[in-house]
Structures are given as C-alpha cells and as structure tokens.
C-alpha cells in the first residue's frame, strides 16, 4: 500500500531515445494541492500526463517505473486506460469545450458511460456546475453553445465537465495561464474549494499562484525533480541552489 493518493516511484519517461523525465519519485497525499513548477520544457506537462496516461497516445513513448493511484500501478498489465481516466480528471491549458451546448458538455462524461437516467444527469450537471462556480452564470442558458461563453467561463465549464464524472484526482496544466486576472482569481478560489474533496496536481508558471494555491511544491529542472517540499518552505527557504535561482527569477 501507499501512504499517498497518487505517487510515482522511480519513473523515467522517454520520447524515442530522449529522456524527458529522469527517475522521479514523488507522492501526493489525499486532499492536498501539489504545484509543479520549473522552466519551460523541463517536463511538467509530461509528468502530469503520466497520471491519466495521456502520454500513451503519442507514438514512441516509453515509461519506466511505477505510477500508483490508490496504491495500484496504473501502468500494470490489464489496467484499462479508460477506467484510470474516469478517476483522474484533467483540465487543459487552453479551454477546450466541445462544440455542444453547455449542458451537453458537462453531461458528456456521463453519457459515454452509458448513464441514461435523465434526473440523475440533470442533478449531476447542476452539482458539477455549482462546484465549478459557474451555475449562477449559466443556469438560464444551459442549452446555449458552450463556445459562446467567455474564456474564463469556458475554463470553469471544462472544470465542471471533469468533475461531473466524480474523479478523485484532478490534474490541471496551467489552467489559468490563458485567462484574464479576474478569471484567474476565480479559478484559484475554486481550487481552494475543490481540495476539500479532490487531490489536485497543478502545473503553473506563475510562482505567486503556486504559493497561493498549493500545499506542496515540486521544482523540476531538465527532467529531474530537484526539490519537493511544503510550499512555504520551498519558497522561503529553498534547499537547492537551482530552486533558489529559479524562484528568485535568475533563470527560467
């Protein structure tokens, strides 16, 4: 068993012959937010996508080591990728709502699971939209196209869409980097709310954001995990020189 909700043990990932992640061991306790920071190209997105096996879709990717969800290796033989992805939701950098109505976007995860009970779907959609702090803004327009929403609303819709299938872990890859400051603040508030129920991994380029929303922070550099500590410690008292250089803006 693992003490952590999700964990990687000695994980290396190769794109062809180049290692994008080198021997990474890191655990995330339940109901905590872990921020992943580091310069561009250091492997943050790649690391995040380990947990819902999104890297599988790229040709020529090889993963070594173990990625544990509730103590079970999700890369083991016989594990169904679809099952993993239902338990590990993901929010992308650019909002990517489907060209469907607001309602159908949130209901999508239920429909592909064969849920047909109308009452249940309606209740779930409302719950997810409330959790994503979008309900009040869209409740009278559920039939409207999701593409008519603003960027910030679209991103909260994508969060609602991920929450509707009741995952236990949520992955967020720079979820507010494409948004205006107000939408950004809303998303951060949301993350605070969500961590009561979910375990969250968030990639961010914004150090203040990492400091504001996360309990723990991991600093990646050139595919290696340089430092992993409680957020306040990492930002006030970094142990590693590279971490210090990065958070003080000397490179990256």
């Amino acid at each position: 068993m693992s003490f952590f909700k999700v964990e990687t043990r000695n994980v290396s990932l190769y794109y062809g012959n180049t290692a994008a992640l080198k021997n990474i061991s890191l655990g995330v306790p339940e109901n905590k937010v872990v921020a992943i920071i580091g310069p561009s190209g250091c492997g943050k997105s790649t690391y995040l996508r380990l947990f819902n096996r999104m890297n599988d879709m790229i040709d020529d990717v090889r993963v070594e080591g173990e990625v544990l969800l509730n103590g079970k290796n999700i890369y083991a033989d016989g594990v169904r990728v679809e099952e993993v992805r239902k338990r590990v939701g993901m929010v992308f950098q650019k909002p990517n709502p489907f060209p469907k109505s607001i309602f159908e976007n949130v209901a999508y995860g239920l429909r592909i699971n064969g849920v047909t009970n109308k009452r249940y779907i309606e209740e779930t959609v409302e719950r997810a939209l409330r959790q994503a702090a979008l309900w009040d803004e869209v409740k009278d327009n559920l039939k409207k196209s999701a593409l008519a929403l603003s960027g910030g609303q679209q991103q909260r819709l994508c969060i609602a869409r991920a929450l509707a299938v009741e995952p236990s872990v949520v992955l967020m890859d720079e979820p507010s980097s494409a948004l205006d400051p107000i939408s950004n603040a809303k998303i951060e508030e949301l993350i605070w709310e969500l961590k009561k129920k979910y375990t969250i991994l968030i990639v961010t380029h914004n150090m203040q954001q990492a400091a504001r929303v996360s309990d723990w922070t991991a600093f990646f550099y050139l595919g290696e995990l340089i430092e992993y500590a409680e957020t306040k410690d990492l930002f006030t008292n970094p142990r590693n020189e590279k971490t210090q250089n990065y958070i003080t803006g000397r490179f990256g």
Partner: protein
Amino acid sequence: MQQRAEASPQTMQSTAFGARRPVVYYTDSLIKSVLFLCALVSVFTTIAILTVLLVQSYFFFKEVSLVEFLTARQWTPLFAEKHFGILPLLSGTLLTSLIALLVSVPLGLAVAIYLSEYARRPVRKVIKPFLEILAGIPTIVYGYFALLTLTPLLQKFIPHLAGFNALSPGIVMGIMILPLVTSLSEDALRAVPDSLREGGFALGASKLQVSLSIVFPSALSGIMASIILALSRAVGETMIVAIAAGNLPQLTFNPLEPVSTMTAFIVQVSQGDTPYGSLAYNTIFAVAIALFVLTFILNMISFRIRKTFLAAGGG
C-alpha cells in the same frame, strides 16, 4: 536580391516618383492584367452559356407550356406522340443519384474516419493512392463496368433486374464519387483540433466515442458540404447512366427498372439525328436549364445547412 528590395512597398514609393520604374513593377502589373483577363474570360463564358440556354429554351417554351413541362408525367419528345414532362427524367436523375449517395456516404464516411482517426501513417500512405486511382478512372470505363459486369452479377441475386436499370449505374456512380466524399470529409475531420480529442480522452472516452461523438459532429459542416458536392457531381454525371441505365424515361422510383436521366437524355439527342432547331432538338436546352436550376437549389441547400450549423456553434 536587389530586385526584391526594390519591390518592397517603402522603396517602391521612392522610385515611383523617380524617372525609372523597376522592371518588377511592369512585370507585376502585366501579370495582374493577364490574371484579370483570365477572370473575365470565365465570367463571359458563364454569361454566354446562360444566354444560349435561355434563348434556345425560349423557343422551346414558346411551344410547350411551363406547366406541362413541370407536371406532365411522360417524356416522349422523339416519338410521334410527343409529351414534354420533365418528371420522368427528374425521377431518373434523383433515383440514380440517391443510390450513389447510399453507397458513397456510409462507405466514404467510414473510410474518412478510419483514415483520419485510426490509420497510422504507413497504412494511410497505401490507401490514399488507391482512392486517387478510383477518382482517375474515366467514366466510360465505369459505365461499361456497370453494364457488363455489375448488372449480370446483380441479376444472379435479383432475378427481376432488367438488363438496363437504375441500380447498377447508381452503385457504380457511388464508387466513382467515393473518393470525393472520403477526401473532403477526411479534410474536415482532420481540421478538428486535437485539443477536443484530448478533452474527450481525458474523460475516459474510447477512440470510437471520441471519433463519433466529438470529432464527427465538430466536422459536420464540412462533411455536409462534401456530401452535397458529391450529390451534385452525381446529378451531373452523364456517361455511366447513358450507358447502363437504359435511356427509357419513366416516372418510377423502382431501382430495378430502366430509367433515363437529364444528362443521359441530352447525350442521346445531341448524338442522334434530331434536326438542329427542331422542337425535339430544343428540348435539350430546356432540360439543361432544369439541370442548372437543380444544381443551383442543391448549392443553396448546402449553403443554408452550413449557415444554420455555424450559427448553432458548430465548427
């Protein structure tokens, strides 16, 4: 190198006031006029064709009323007892075209989805050239294939099938327009951004679910356009139906019987010994106008579909 610098807008301005204009300037304006002439030629051709059609069919409609043309149920302009109802030709055209769509749309969409969502690059490299070969076969070959190969084959399963019929050329036409449906639909599917696919996969959707419930609807407007284009291609197709459908205008939607289409009729008259300027001869212009209107309506429909679909928020 120097020429290129002179052609840039800033330097052009300074030289334009000077005595000497750069060579590039003249070549540019020459090319522009040549291209304009080409555009003009195509506009005039269209106008000329329309004028001829209208003038010649005027002679036709002087003798045959529009009402008879549109409502009479027989088309026998070459017989002693003449009837001028376009409906039999229209039904033949629609029947063969619909059969072609029934073949090419399901098959074409399946191939398009396979090529765009499933096939790995080496597989695609093998399949695409085959489709292009299909598109390059002369229609007369398709026509004889329908008449001499497919019809006898079908007769083994369908005893009532006439030697000339709508079914066989319809199917073959479907094969002919298959590459059109496939490649245009594939383009539309490929244009759907990967971020949407990722969004679906991240929710635990299977590849089939992502293809059918996300990618396909997102590409619907492009797919519709490809289907309508294929339909108007089928409506305008001549050789296959002229050879294998039987040139027998009758108002029927039974695919097992011989029919004639608008295009096949035009071929029949223009190749026969119908005297120039006679009423029978002028029928081909009336039919051509009808064909023109039909394709025009099809294009309007496709335009409307696209517009309403875009308004609904589709891609």
